[in-house]
């Protein structure tokens, strides 16, 4: 049996067991389908359907985004299939009281990286073995070397450019934004009941897809994810306009690591840098 098939089998088995024993009412996992670019999410409620579960290198999605969906919550206790990197998002959700650990079951799957050429996040991944899960399936996988160096390569490449070059680059990129908010909707951490762009009194962020509104929107999104973003890369993946949102997220994540020695989602306890401060923070640049 191929490693993929055996992982699929253990997933199906685990899910079927959980469902038949009434441990959970719903299992959210991936349903790899022939000919698709993405293994789409599947919502399994019966042991029979559990057969659809599987795992392959097209399982990009970070399924933790569904954990706080009102519909999913209504269905009862939920198990979710998570890659090691997805666990980080779960950790943030736990930290921010969005979900309670006792309401969910985490089925971790060891992941060797997703994408044809492994996605950037996978080449710098340092959490292929899911931590803190209730069950972990899949064969042991190798951790890529030198994960830390390349972690912020996209941001660093831009940092090296001049201010003007960066402006030119981002103007071109952000002008493309069509304000579909797919980046927001897919982000497991954009769970706000009312996103700031939807607050109309006052309307801080203009909703028109012109460069001004777009810049504000992307700045606000990035800022709201600063110190929280776990780098799952979903926003960049789903952006229909191919805006390299990951580079912005990396920039902020790098700042958090450099300044505050903080990487988001490494545990469900730690506090995000923006909810606290240190008296030793730098005064650099302050007049």
């Amino acid at each position: 049996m191929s490693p993929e098939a055996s992982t699929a089998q253990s997933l199906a088995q685990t899910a079927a067991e959980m469902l038949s024993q009434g441990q959970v009412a719903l299992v959210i996992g991936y349903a790899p389908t022939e000919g698709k670019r993405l293994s789409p999410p599947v919502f399994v409620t019966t042991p029979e359907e559990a057969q659809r579960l599987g795992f392959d290198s097209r399982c990009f999605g970070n399924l933790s985004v569904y954990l706080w969906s009102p519909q999913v919550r209504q269905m009862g206790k939920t198990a979710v299939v998570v890659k090691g990197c997805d666990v980080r998002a779960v950790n943030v959700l736990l930290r921010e009281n969005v979900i309670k650990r006792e309401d969910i079951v985490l089925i971790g799957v060891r992941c060797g990286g997703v994408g044809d050429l492994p996605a950037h996040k996978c080449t710098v991944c340092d959490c292929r073995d899911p931590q803190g899960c209730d069950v972990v399936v899949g064969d042991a996988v190798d951790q890529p070397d030198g994960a830390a160096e390349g972690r912020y390569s996209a941001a660093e490449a831009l940092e090296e450019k001049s201010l003007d070059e960066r402006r030119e680059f981002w103007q071109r990129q952000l002008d493309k934004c069509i304000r579909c908010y797919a980046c927001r909707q897919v982000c497991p951490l954009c769970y706000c009941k009312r996103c700031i762009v939807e607050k109309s009194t006052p309307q801080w962020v203009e909703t028109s897809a012109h460069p001004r509104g777009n810049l504000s929107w992307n700045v606000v999104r990035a800022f709201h994810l600063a110190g929280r973003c776990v780098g799952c890369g979903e926003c960049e993946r789903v952006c229909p306009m191919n805006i390299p949102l990951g580079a912005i997220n990396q920039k902020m994540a790098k700042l958090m690591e450099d300044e505050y020695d903080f990487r988001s989602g490494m545990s469900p306890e730690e506090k995000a840098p923006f909810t606290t401060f240190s008296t030793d923070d730098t005064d650099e640049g302050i007049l």
Partner: protein
Amino acid sequence: MSRAMPNVPATTDDHALIPMDYTSSKMRIASIVDETSDVKTFRLTFCDEQEGEAFDYRAGQFGLYSVFGAGEATFCIASSPTRKGYMECSVKRAGKVTGELHQCNVGDIVGFRGPYGNWFPIDLMKGKNLVFVGGGIGLAPLRSLIWNCLDLRDQFGEIAIVYGARSVSDLVYKEELETWRQMEDVSTVLTVDPGGETPEWEGEVGFVPTVLEEANPSADNAIVITCGPPIMIKFVMMSLEKLGFGHEGIYTTLENRMKCGIGKCGRCNVGNLYVCKDGPVFSYSQLQELPQEF
């Protein structure tokens, strides 16, 4: 000018197209009346006199009012088309535009485009007994029609008005309510929800449907026009059924969110209808055939 006939879906072949560039006419606020803590009635006059003279509408129609800088919002026209020279709307403070509107003063300029939508079937109502059932700010569209009918009093049979609000302070058009109460040929029942009364309150205490049942208007040759919060409408319908009213003779207006007012922006779409074009006035039987998305 409005073109759609009541309750008849307009189609492309109906008539010539009306060019539309979404511009607004300028109107000046002539007066402001504080109805309740969050409802104000604005009387507006066209800045361009000719435009004002040419302006015509029917009770039940709405327009898109704008505060420049805040945006547009939909309100029904609350004054009667029989009263010329001005137009009124009653606005509940709810958000951006309504909030800004509440900040406006007499003399300020606002925008208006309309009238849009269909209207109450006033032609069908002629010779009939009329029952108006209103709740809260829902009296605004009814007010237009009530004055319209009162100004043409001899064309209608008996007129009954049942109106209620959560509390005495939430009643709108207080002076007019008193005028209607004084009228010999109109039976007016006013009510407030239990707990909403004051020591001076002389009207009923109770929910609109209950009070309506007590008032017991005759279903014979009658047309009911009702408007109010969805939950009230639901129970009013049950009461009307009890009183023997058929669905055909009951009309109400919908408030689905809308942006263009002319059947394009897609927001008010319910089933194959556009509330802005095929409504906002609907008969109860019509509503029952629609997906319950209003």
